[in-house]
């Protein structure tokens, strides 16, 4: 009996010390290893992880990735303040980066590599955020259902003839918010409102969380048209070359607004304790090798002037971009959200 008792006690000691260890392990925030970067990323993990893996392979610096919504991550950084474990913020939208910068979350950068690689209009004035790849908000259409000359401008999509034939992203999407901001800045409040009301009624239930789903729906013929970022179309075509879809670059007509451009970008968090490693990552992303990864893997437009986009894409020189500076997207955001809510987009 005493033996059993002893064994029980031993058993219990082991168990409780194990539990204690476990508790210590998860509740006490681990001090991150010296060469490990924590990245909050608003981009889909699928689109950014290969590039970060290449960085780890090159430099030996490990990367811990938290993938979530862009706005959600900016909210989170604001709440975490100085205590955040994040070293960098990567987003799918320049407006969000600019908002993070004005909230004082990002660290201004003085890096020759950045200034040489990325043209000034694609980064913050103090380089607190730097664009890493360009994307256009385009119309994807099913080639068996729509002729390319049927749509000239994004605003045409509000026409009742597209009732139930169009798929759009939900109103939480930062692309949509940026796109509507640019339309507002170009065409004014009232015209934008009419456009959104028409779009809402045409899309009805076809409001999607993810752009890849919109492209999928267009490819299957579930809807005739969709509004997405261009690379989702080319990524779909890369895996399914026979899909009946094509890109229509909108608003290129005489006096038109031009296609709506946005950039994915990166910023270093002000309180980072791994500044050198973080700078190395930024350098990697803007250098030719990194830019080529975005061009080849993600089908985005590289921002580095010497790196060529994928040849399948519409030649960048052949179309015009809208004339709204990226940094303005931040101040346009709030009234845009109010308008979106008034219209009642999902």
């Amino acid at each position, binding site marked *: 009996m005493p033996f059993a008792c002893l064994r029980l006690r031993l058993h219990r000691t082991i168990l409780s010390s194990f539990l204690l260890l476990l508790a210590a392990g998860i*509740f006490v925030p681990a001090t991150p290893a010296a060469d490990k970067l924590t990245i*909050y990323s608003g981009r889909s993990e699928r689109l950014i992880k290969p590039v970060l893996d290449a960085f780890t392979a090159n430099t030996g610096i490990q990367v811990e990735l938290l993938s*979530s919504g862009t706005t959600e991550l900016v909210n*989170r950084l604001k709440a975490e303040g100085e205590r955040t474990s994040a070293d960098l913020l990567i987003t799918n939208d320049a407006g969000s980066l600019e908002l993070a910068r004005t909230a004082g979350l990002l660290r201004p950068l003085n890096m020759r590599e950045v200034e040489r690689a990325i043209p000034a209009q694609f980064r913050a004035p103090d380089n607190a955020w730097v664009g890493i790849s360009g994307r256009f908000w385009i119309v994807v259409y099913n080639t068996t259902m729509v002729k390319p000359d049927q749509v000239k401008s994004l605003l045409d999509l509000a026409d009742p003839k597209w009732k139930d034939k169009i798929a759009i992203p939900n109103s939480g999407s930062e692309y949509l918010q940026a796109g509507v901001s640019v339309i507002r800045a170009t065409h004014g409040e009232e015209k934008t409102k009419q456009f959104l009301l028409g779009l809402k009624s045409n899309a009805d239930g076809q409001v999607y969380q993810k752009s890849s789903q919109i492209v*999928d729906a267009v490819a299957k013929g579930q809807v005739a048209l969709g509004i997405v970022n261009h690379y989702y179309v080319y990524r779909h075509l890369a895996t399914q070359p026979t899909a009946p879809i094509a890109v229509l670059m909108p608003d290129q007509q005489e006096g038109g607004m031009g296609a709506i451009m946005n950039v994915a970008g990166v910023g270093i968090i002000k309180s980072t304790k791994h500044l050198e490693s973080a700078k190395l990552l930024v350098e990697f992303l803007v250098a030719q090798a990194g830019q080529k990864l975005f061009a080849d893997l993600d089908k985005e437009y590289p921002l580095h002037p010497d790196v060529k986009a994928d040849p399948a894409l519409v030649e960048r020189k052949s179309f015009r971009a809208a004339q709204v500076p990226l940094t303005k997207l931040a101040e346009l955001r709030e009234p845009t959200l109010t308008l979106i809510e008034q219209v*009642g987009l999902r």
Partner: protein
Amino acid sequence: MNTIRHQLASPLQLLALATAGIILLPLGYVTAQALSADPAVWSRLWATRIPELLFNTVSLAASVAVITLVLGVSTAWLVTRVEFPGRRLWEGALVLPLAMPTYVLAYVYSYLLGFGGPVEHLWQLAAGPQARIFSPHSYWGATLVMALDTFPFVYLLSRSAFLSLNVSFEEVARACGVSRLSTLWRVTLPLMRPSIAAGIALVILYVVSDFGAVSLLRYQTLTYAVFQQMTGRSDNTAASILSLLLVGLALIFLITERWFRQKSRFYQTTGRYRAPQRHRYGWLGTLAVTGYLGLIVGAAFALPAALLIQWSLSPEAQATLDSRFFGFIWNSGILAASAATGGVLIGLPLAYLASRRPTLLNLGCLQAAYAGYVLPGPVAALAVLVLFTKLAPVFYGSVLILIVAYVIHFLPAGLQSLEPALQQITPNLEEVARTLGLGIRDTWRRVTLPLVRNGFVVAWVLMFLQTMKELPATLLLRPVGFDTLAIRVWMEASEEYFQLAAPAALLIVLLSLPALALLVSKDWRAT
């Protein structure tokens, strides 16, 4: 004796009060934030989103309630009142859908019924190449998925009601010349009303607070809208307003059910004197019954499970089974174990005090703990988030905040087995141990704990299981490097990478099965 009890009770009392406070505070904060919001935000939401969201939520709950009522009661009746080959097998199989999280079922059905999916192909063979079936991304799609997933609640409660019903009532009716069908309608079903109502209430609360299925099926409910507001806006005002409405709605359902149960309470003075007789069916009847049950279990469990297995074996899915994947399993396990342990530790003083010293205060604390019932995942996340940023911002982004959200959210599920476990042991036993000279601690260790252990295990398993499947709060609050299996399923499935989502989904289902068996065996009576 009394003084000793007081000594024992006061720290416990404080603990219970603190727990109730921790649970109610977040709710209070969200309410305050919603009520102090700019009236312009309220009126804008009323003018645009709220009517649609309320209508969608209520109509989904209503249709799912009706369908689960039919499915649950009819299947329960078949396995208790009819004898046919394989009856015992079906009796167990009908519980299986509970192992399938709603988001897994939703993603399987968005493939099966999706545009150009297999069901549509079949239908086109019959009805011509242009024929279309209803989209799963709709009211009916959400109804189908939620009903298939939740009817076992009604089935389980109806089944035990059918079994414990005193057959004398029915026999009297039959002896008085009432037909078999009429007896069922006029005697049996009315007697079962409390059980059925309890099952339906569970279903409705489940539907109202579900996030996974409605988000994958793009059906706009209040819960989904709260999540969208939290992730798409830089301030949480609108999310708080919608949360408050959601909590109000859930409360209405809960109170209605309680009231209904109070009103229709039946007493059986004696136990049943024999088990109800089973009607024996011929081969035609057997065929029909087997077909009916097979269709339900097939649609709700067998077919989705088979697809998950098939997808998991595909090369694409196999490629994801690396060390990262095992990290997700570990994360899921450790989070669920912490939440379950935390829940038991927190629930214990509440349940103990309420059963040993049922003062108004203690009962109130216990009721407060049930608030989690009306706090759907995104709302619990929002509440905890708001609370921590106001009171203890240090913990923001840590595991603790996530675990607190889990505990608040799932404590009611745990309390439901802790409470009866404690109530069942009479205080006399403890008093005897004390008079025989055992100290307070030893009494606890050697008398009380062994007696309530089973209830604890069940509570722990239940909370573990729920936490492992939890999606919205995890999405919103997870710290860096804490992706769980549920997160992986949702991330892949929401981009329609069905194969890649399958291994994690299958694992969740497999891990849920033993837990489900344990829970069901607790009050499984086979006769």
